[in-house]
């Protein structure tokens, strides 16, 4: 069979690209740019306690001092002077969908969030631009003592001290420039506390929608899973496409207690004008387990490397991720793990697909300190190139400092096998469908880790990405 080039059309994103024009009477927003006055304005607007206001201002100082790293995709198109860091719908957060303003409610209904809540979720938080507009948790879950609320409420309630003891302690403003930015202007996000021994049987979900053009979203997610507890948390995000840059610089801090387990699943589908500079970090105590499931489909530029610190003996981490980079996208994704205690284990399965000029980079680090006797780490990454105008790079680093460790790494890069396409076509399947099936199969490691509804959504996204393939 002769080799034929495949042309892949741009994605039909109408499901995500609908938008409502925001008028000033329905929204409060600060001026674009980043100044101490704007940061103080946000702080005042959010009624921050003093320590939070100080943290914001200190973070701004650090942001102004820090330079950009010399690695990673260019972010020249992002000008902080043009970004509006705080946009608040003029509505209060509600626990009842009926109370959410119509346009915003319609947005989440089109995205299927209320339906998902009814069918398969233990609780939902919905953020629109900079603030949560809806937050609810099932009664039976709340009765188990599970706290699922917005960070702002938690800051002023009975969990205020817990927030103060954890907020930006794992990700500090000194980590990098955009962690500092987050510290200065964060808004929205969720706080989850699962008490000792409590197992939340069905997932919680937060959904983040950024609707305003030229805006930034800086939500903060803080989850504490106490000893022996169990939680699955799902994060979803999308935005309509604009011709100006939008910015997402959220932060996710996860604390997994002794023998506890947390699964954190993300289907990231930001619009392709988005700079997604997100930071996620988890600290795992003795016998605890962290599971990351990550699908990255959207954004113009992404920097995303969930980090896990295995800090207690026998702590475990699993990472399963896929990145799909299409036209105009430069997605730099991967993970970091630090083995800092004996008998810790990590298992990583990362896949990426590049097509139509998209750039995908897998970047990772596995660090094994000399406290981590008996540590085991296994990393496997595979990349698929769908044409010769795209790019795929693999940059995995390992730093091992104990003799008693077992660290393995393997990576492969290649193309869809002609033989596999030929085989499927000989069974009556069109080339377009054959290629889509092969790519779906390639991404199977992620979709099988997601709840059914999300696996279907992910496979739909892959099908959309592959649509238009001609032989």
């Amino acid at each position: 069979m002769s080799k034929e080039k495949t042309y892949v059309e741009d994605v039909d994103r109408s499901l995500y690209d609908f938008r409502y024009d925001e008028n000033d009477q329905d929204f409060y927003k600060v001026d674009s740019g980043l100044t101490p006055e704007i940061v103080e304005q946000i702080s005042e607007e959010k009624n921050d306690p003093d320590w939070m206001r100080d943290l914001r201002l200190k973070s701004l100082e650090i942001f102004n001092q820090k330079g950009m790293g010399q690695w990673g995709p260019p972010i020249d198109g992002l000008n902080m002077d043009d970004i509006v860091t705080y946009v608040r719908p003029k509505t209060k957060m509600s626990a009842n969908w009926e109370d959410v303003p119509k346009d915003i409610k319609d947005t989440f209904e089109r995205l299927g969030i209320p339906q998902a809540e009814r069918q398969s979720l233990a609780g939902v938080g919905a953020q629109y631009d900079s603030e949560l507009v809806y937050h609810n948790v099932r009664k039976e879950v709340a009765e188990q003592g599970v706290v699922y609320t917005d960070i702002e409420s938690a800051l002023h309630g009975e969990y205020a001290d817990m927030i103060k003891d954890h907020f930006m302690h794992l990700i500090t403003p000194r980590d990098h420039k955009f962690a500092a930015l987050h510290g200065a202007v964060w808004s929205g996000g969720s706080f989850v506390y699962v008490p000792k021994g409590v197992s939340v049987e069905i997932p919680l979900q937060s959904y983040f929608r950024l609707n305003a053009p030229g805006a930034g979203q800086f939500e903060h997610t803080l989850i504490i899973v106490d000893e022996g507890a169990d939680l699955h948390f799902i994060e979803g995000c999308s935005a309509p496409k604009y011709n100006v840059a939008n910015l997402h610089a959220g932060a996710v801090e996860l604390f997994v207690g002794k023998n506890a387990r947390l699964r954190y699943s993300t289907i990231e589908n930001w619009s392709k004008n988005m700079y997604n500079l997100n930071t996620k970090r988890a600290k795992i105590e003795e016998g605890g387990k962290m599971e990351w499931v990550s699908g990255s489909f959207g954004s113009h530029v992404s920097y995303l490397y969930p980090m896990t610190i295995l800090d207690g003996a026998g702590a475990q981490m699993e990472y399963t991720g896929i990145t799909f980079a299409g036209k105009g996208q430069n997605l730099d994704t991967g993970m970091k793990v630090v083995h800092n205690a004996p008998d810790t284990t990590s298992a990583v399965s990362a896949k990426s697909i590049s097509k139509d000029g998209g750039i995908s980079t897998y970047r990772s680090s596995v660090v094994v300190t000399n406290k981590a006797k008996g540590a085991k780490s296994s990393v496997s990454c595979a990349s698929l190139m769908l044409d010769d105008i795209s790019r795929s790079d693999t940059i995995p680093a390992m730093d091992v400092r104990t003799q008693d460790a077992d660290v393995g790494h393997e990576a492969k890069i290649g193309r869809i096998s002609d033989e596999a396409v030929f085989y499927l076509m000989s069974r009556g399947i069109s080339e377009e469908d054959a290629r889509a099936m092969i790519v779906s199969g390639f991404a199977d490691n992620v979709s099988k880790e997601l709840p059914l509804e999300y696996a279907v959504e992910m496979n739909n996204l892959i099908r959309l990405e592959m649509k238009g393939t001609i032989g």
Partner: protein
Amino acid sequence: MTMSAQEQSTNLVVNHLPGQTWNWLKMNDARVAVDAQSATLEADTVKPEALAEGAGLSPIGGGMGPDYDKWIQGIAPAAYHTEAGQKIAAPLKLTYQLKSGATGAASTAFDIAKDSELTIIMDFAGQNGAAGTSGFSTKLHLAEGALVKLVQIHRGGADQRIFNDVGAVLENDARFEVVQLVMDAADTYIGCQADLKGDRSSFKADVAYLVQNEDLLDTNFVALHHGKKTESTINSAGVLRDKAEKLFRGTIDFKNGASGSVGNEKEDVMLMDDTVINKTIPLILCAEEDVEGNHGATIGKLDDELMFYMESRGMAADEIYELIAKSKLEAASRLIPDQAVREDVQAYIETHQRLEKE
């Protein structure tokens, strides 16, 4: 005008990782303060009669990078060339006695003509106690169908800091094979880059090392696939003990247009103490659809099944580790094409290079 010692000192940035990553890992490059090179290191040369001297090369990039090229540019290269079709059976042997005190450097250039073959053996030899800095540069141009086997043996004494840079450009159907054995030296920096410019050209590097005491080995291997159906293989195997540190950078870079190319790299590191630092960063950079790239790394202790098997034969764990460590160097030494040099190196491993801490 006489320059002060401070004025003569230069900060070299060498072994640049072709795709940069997080700075906190300290893997993006190596930064070293060195004095200006002050003397040309002369080689004890055993030259096959058929090999001609003379004729230089246009600049060729090495694995060490432009800073190093600049540092060594004042050293006039010893240049050799072959004639078309010439297959030179006897190896060119260049032995450098590393000196105490001075900062010496040597540069060598090879212009390998169409369909000709040459074996080059470089021995960087020194004595313990001979503290100094030595720099080497080996640049090669391999014309269509040419074959070069380059063997470099580092047994430069325990007190030497050595920079060893290799750069080659390969035309159609050329083949470049490199064997490097690193057995001692306080700090060793190796850069090796093969530009597979021609279609069907190929590059193979086999590296074996033992790094011990508080020594450092910092390497940067780069295979640039420009031509179609090009092949690269980078195999690195070694042992770290005591407070040794090693950084392996290995890059397979598939450029757009290198269709049908294949690149493989593999690292196997055995760690013998809890005080070692092992860093590994194997890159695959890919701008071409029709290629196949693989890399694998195994780092840490010996495989449980192997340990069980050998312990069941009555060997103690320490003995097994010593045996395996020695076998990694011996495996690479068997790739040395010259029998006399091979036996000499194997004797060195067996006697001088006792793999036991005293």
